[in-house]
Each structure stands twice: as structure tokens, then as C-alpha cells.
């Protein structure tokens, strides 16, 4: 769906910064990179050792290419340095901590100074304006408030822009619906799994979304999802959905965001230096090749991160964007190196399966991938209510069709179990789609 709000297409929050010329951007990046290395070298023993070992010092950083001499910062490094190991300023300068949940062991803690918070909010303001949101809008924030960055960073950015914010958080769906009605919510920030659930509840309650509510657009993030899921949500709500990319380690949401062209997400290159690497070898790949996104913060005060491996798989979209912004775009996240699982020796990303399922009429929103052995996988699929006509043949056809399409995509033949709508677990936060029961 293309936005009809064309009048706001060429509105910018920071026109000069968002349309900066390549040369000016590069020299800005270089000076910011020097400052970042300087700050890290001076205050963080972890980075000082790394720089010394690599023969890098702030003075010897003469080009952006010198960055390649430094090793990557990883998840494990962040955990090992938890909680204050990477702090690059006196503790009294830090005013906020966010954490990223780890499934095992220690969490990752990210510390923010006042300027860091303000910068994060500023980038969100850019993103919101870029998608047509303005002061007149009313944003219902359905992300989890707390240690997770998703809700708070969006909240600060929207407030900075002057949007009226409803800090509802996720869940309590009937209350969400009342607020949407009572306050005339125009924009919402949500996880895709909750968006699908919200749509089904609105349907159950018999609410005509397009007539009774005033929704115009939504920002989705925090979980991997496919373009098909996004399209489905746009159709269900009759709105524009904008992909948002972020991670706690880099402020949270607003690192990269779709403009109204909806063809990739502009990554704010005056705040982050991006590289795409081969996840296996660490080699930096050419523009346009698919690989793991590696980010270096350029303005972080409290906790600069150098060459942080995001684990997110994407690629840079070469060429300019007709919206006028010069910051290069990345594609939606194509997978996470962490989510990948292996069946019969084949590497499989859950997103591949989701993409197939969402393209098949008759398949409802929830699904589960269950791994009981290394030889096969079972996909639990909900049929949609309206395709059930009491004929067993139609269900058998649907089952066979799903098996064929999934096999064509992942090259492994799955078992497909059909379930009644609404019977598979949904979560009002991050949905757990892969159940791995295997023991090594």
C-alpha cells in the first residue's frame, strides 16, 4: 500500500543532515570515528588492549578503511564486560541502562548518557517525520516499557517531535481497543505477532477497523517477520506499515527505518558506520552483497561500540532513493545468524518458512516449527476459519500444498499438522516460533 499522504513526502526533520552529500558524510564519519576510538581508547581497557594489539590509535586513524584493522565486538564481549566494563565516561554521566535479554548467562547492558538518549530520540523523530507522522498525530505505543529499548526510545522520539503518546505497553487488548477509539489513535508501534493478534480480536469484536478507528500507519519491529506478514497487517488494518530496524546495543529502534517509498530502510550513517561481512570469515563484503550487518557507533558517549556484530543478515541497497535522503538503505532483515537451525544438514531460517506460509490462502497467522530430530521438522499450522467447508479433500489439498511449497523453499520435506484457528500459542510479546526439542 502506498501512502496517500503525499503532501508530507518531502518533509524532513533535519533536512541538511538527512540529505548530506557523500563526501561531507565521509569526512564527518571519519572525524566521528576518530573521536569514538579516542574515547574508547582512553576510558575502556577492553578497547585499549584491542587497539594496541591491532596497532591502531586515534592519531593513526586516517581513513575509514583503518576501521577494518580492528577486531569485532561481539555479544560475548558485551556479556563479559557486563555491567560497567565498556563504560567510557564517569558513572555519574550515565543516566539510563537498557538490557538485552540473553537466553543463557548474563544479559547485555547498554548505558546511555543524556546526549545518547537525546540522539536516540532525534533519530526516531527523523524516522517518524520521514513516514509522514507529525505533531498532530496520536501514537499508541504497544511495546514493552522497561529494560527493553523498544518502547522508551520510541516514546522519547515521539515526544521530541510533539506527538501525543499513549504509553500503553503490550497486552490488555480490550483496553488497547478502547484507547484507540477514545483518543483517536492514528499511529501505533507494535510487534508483528501482537499486530496479528490485535487484528483477530478486532474482528471477533465485530469492529470495522477502517470505519470506526482512525489508524493511518504502524511501526513494526522487535521480532523478525516477512514482507508477506507486513502486507497482511497492512490489509487487515487498512494502514501503511513501516519497517523499523534497531537493536538495544545501538539505541534500540530507529537505527534504520523505511521512508514512504517502502523500498529498504535508511540507516542513519551520520550516527552509525555500517559494514556487511561474511558471517563465517569476517571478511568485509562489497556493497549489495548479503551478509551480517556490523555497526560502529559514531556519536555514543557512554558506551561506544566498535564493529559490533549484530547477527542480523541483510544487504545494502545501492543507489539513491527518490525520497531525497542520501543515507544508504538496507533490506529488511533476511535472517538472524542465531535463529538459523539445521535439519538434514540444511541451514534453515524460520523466516523462509514464514514467508511461504503467509503466501498461502487458507493459512492463519500462528504457526510453530517443532524440531524433534535432526532428520525432519514438523510445522504446526492453523487453518483460517473461512476456508473450512467441511470437505476433507480441501484440507488434504491444503496440507499437500503447504508441504510442497515449504519443501521448494527449504529443500527439506516437512511434516505439516493442521490445527484449528486460535489453538496454537500466541504471545503478546516476542513470539516463540521454533520449538527445538532436540538433545545433542
Amino acid at each position, binding site marked *: 500500500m502506498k501512502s496517500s499522504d503525499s503532501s508530507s513526502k518531502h518533509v524532513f526533520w533535519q533536512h541538511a543532515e538527512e540529505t548530506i552529500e557523500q563526501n561531507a558524510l565521509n569526512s564527518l564519519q571519519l572525524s566521528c570515528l576518530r573521536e569514538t576510538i579516542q574515547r574508547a581508547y582512553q576510558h575502556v581497557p577492553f578497547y585499549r588492549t584491542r587497539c594496541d594489539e591491532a596497532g591502531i590509535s586515534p592519531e593513526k586513524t586516517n581513513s575509514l578503511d583503518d576501521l577494518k584493522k580492528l577486531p569485532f565486538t561481539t555479544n560475548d564481549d558485551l556479556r563479559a564486560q557486563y555491567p560497567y566494563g565498556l563504560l567510557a565516561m564517569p558513572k555519574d554521566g550515565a543516566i539510563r541502562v537498557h538490557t538485552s535479554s540473553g537466553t543463557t548467562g548474563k544479559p547485555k547492558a547498554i548505558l546511555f548518557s543524556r546526549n545518547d538518549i537525546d540522539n536516540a530520540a532525534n533519530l526516531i523523530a527523523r524516522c517518524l517525520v520521514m513516514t509522514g507522522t507529525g505533531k498532530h498525530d496520536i501514537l499508541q505505543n504497544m511495546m514493552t516499557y522497561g529494560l527493553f529499548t523498544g518502547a522508551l526510545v520510541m516514546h522519547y522520539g515521539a515526544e521530541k517531535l510533539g506527538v501525543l503518546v499513549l504509553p500503553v505497553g503490550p497486552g490488555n487488548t480490550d483496553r488497547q481497543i478502547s484507547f484507540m477509539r477514545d483518543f483517536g489513535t492514528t499511529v501505533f508501534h507494535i510487534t508483528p505477532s501482537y499486530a496479528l493478534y490485535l487484528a483477530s480480536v478486532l474482528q471477533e469484536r465485530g469492529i470495522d477497523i477502517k470505519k470506526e478507528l482512525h489508524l493511518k500507519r504502524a511501526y513494526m519491529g522487535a521480532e523478525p517477520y516477512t514482507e508477506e506478514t507486513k502486507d497482511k497487517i497492512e490489509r487487515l488494518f487498512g494502514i501503511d506499515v513501516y519497517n523499523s530496524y534497531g537493536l538495544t546495543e545501538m539505541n534500540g529502534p530507529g537505527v534504520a527505518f523505511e521512508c514512504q517509498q517502502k523500498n529498504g530502510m535508511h540507516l542513519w550513517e551520520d550516527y552509525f558506520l555500517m559494514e556487511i561481512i561474511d558471517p563465517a570469515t569476517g571478511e568485509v563484503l562489497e556493497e549489495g552483497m548479503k551478509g551480517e550487518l556490523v555497526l560502529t557507533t559514531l556519536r555514543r558517549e557512554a558506551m561506544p561500540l566498535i564493529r559490533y556484530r549484530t547477527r542480523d543478515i541483510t544487504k545494502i541497497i545501492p543507489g539513491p532513493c527518490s525520497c531525497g535522503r542520501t543515507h544508504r538503505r538496507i533490506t529488511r532483515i533476511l535472517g538472524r545468524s542465531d535463529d538459523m537451525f539445521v535439519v538434514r544438514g540444511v541451514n534453515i531460517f524460520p523466516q523462509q518458512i514464514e514467508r511461504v506460509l503467509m503466501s498461502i490462502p487458507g493459512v492463519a497467522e500462528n504457526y510453530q516449527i517443532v524440531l524433534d530430530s535432526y532428520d525432519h521438522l514438523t510445522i504446526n499450522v492453523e*487453518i483460517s*476459519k473461512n476456508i*473450512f*467447508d*467441511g*470437505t*476433507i479433500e480441501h*484440507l*488434504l489439498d491444503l*496440507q499437500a500444498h503447504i508441504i510442497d511449497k515449504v519443501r521448494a523453499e527449504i529443500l527439506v520435506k516437512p511434516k505439516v*499438522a*493442521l*490445527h*484449528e*484457528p*486460535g*489453538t496454537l500459542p500466541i504471545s503478546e510479546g516476542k513470539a516463540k516460533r521454533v520449538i527445538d526439542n532436540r538433545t545433542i
Partner: protein
Amino acid sequence: MDKIMQISVFSENKPGKIEKITRIFSEKAINILAISITSTNGFGIIKLLVDKCDLAYQELQKAGITVSLSEVLAIEMKDSPGGMYEVSHILSKHGINIENAYVYVVESRTRAYLLVEVKDIEKAKEILAHEQLTFLNLKSC
């Protein structure tokens, strides 16, 4: 001939579905006249002929059950040797294929109905109207 509707319910292969349906029917005083259960490839379909079809459909929907309504032929037959042969002979003579069938016995050893699902029910009804057959009329049950 009366339009006879059957109720079909989607069922995963796990215990409790029939119990849930029959509890609803029991609470709403809905009587089951005939039932058939088919299961295959990890799921099944339960087909039911009931006395209050519309109410049953509404109540099942309200309970979140995946349910659909479809028309069946309900052809009277003698509940004695040869009864089903007479009916199936007529169907076969006209090339009407039985997709699925089950039986509603009204009076044991006397009268029963063969409930038949066919691909093109309108056409089948048209053909069978010329035959000496009696069809179920639920109002008289």
C-alpha cells in the same frame, strides 16, 4: 424436497472435541440424529445431523469451534435387508457418486435415512426428483 443441512466440525487429533460439542448440544437441548467421524493425516472431520441445525451452528461458532454447514441428500430407505441396495442402485444408475455417507435410523428395523454427500447436489436433486424416493422432512421428525 426439504433442504437438509449437516454440520461439519474440524477436529485435531486430540481428545475432548466430541465432549465439547456434545456438552453444548446437551445444554441447548439439541438432539443428534446421526454422526460420522473421519480422520486422516493427523486431523479429522465430524459430521452431524441434528434437529436444530441453525441453533447448533450458532452455538458451535460462539464457542470458537471451526464449523461449516452443507447440504446433504437424506433419502429414506427400509431398515431391512435390501433397503440400502434399493437406494444405492438408483444413485448408481444415474452415475451419482457418493462422496461420503452415513445413516440416520428413525425406527429401528423399519425406517432409516441414507445421508449422502455428492459433488453437485442441485443436479442430483433434479435427477432424483423423478424417482420413486422419499426424502427426509425434519419438521415431521
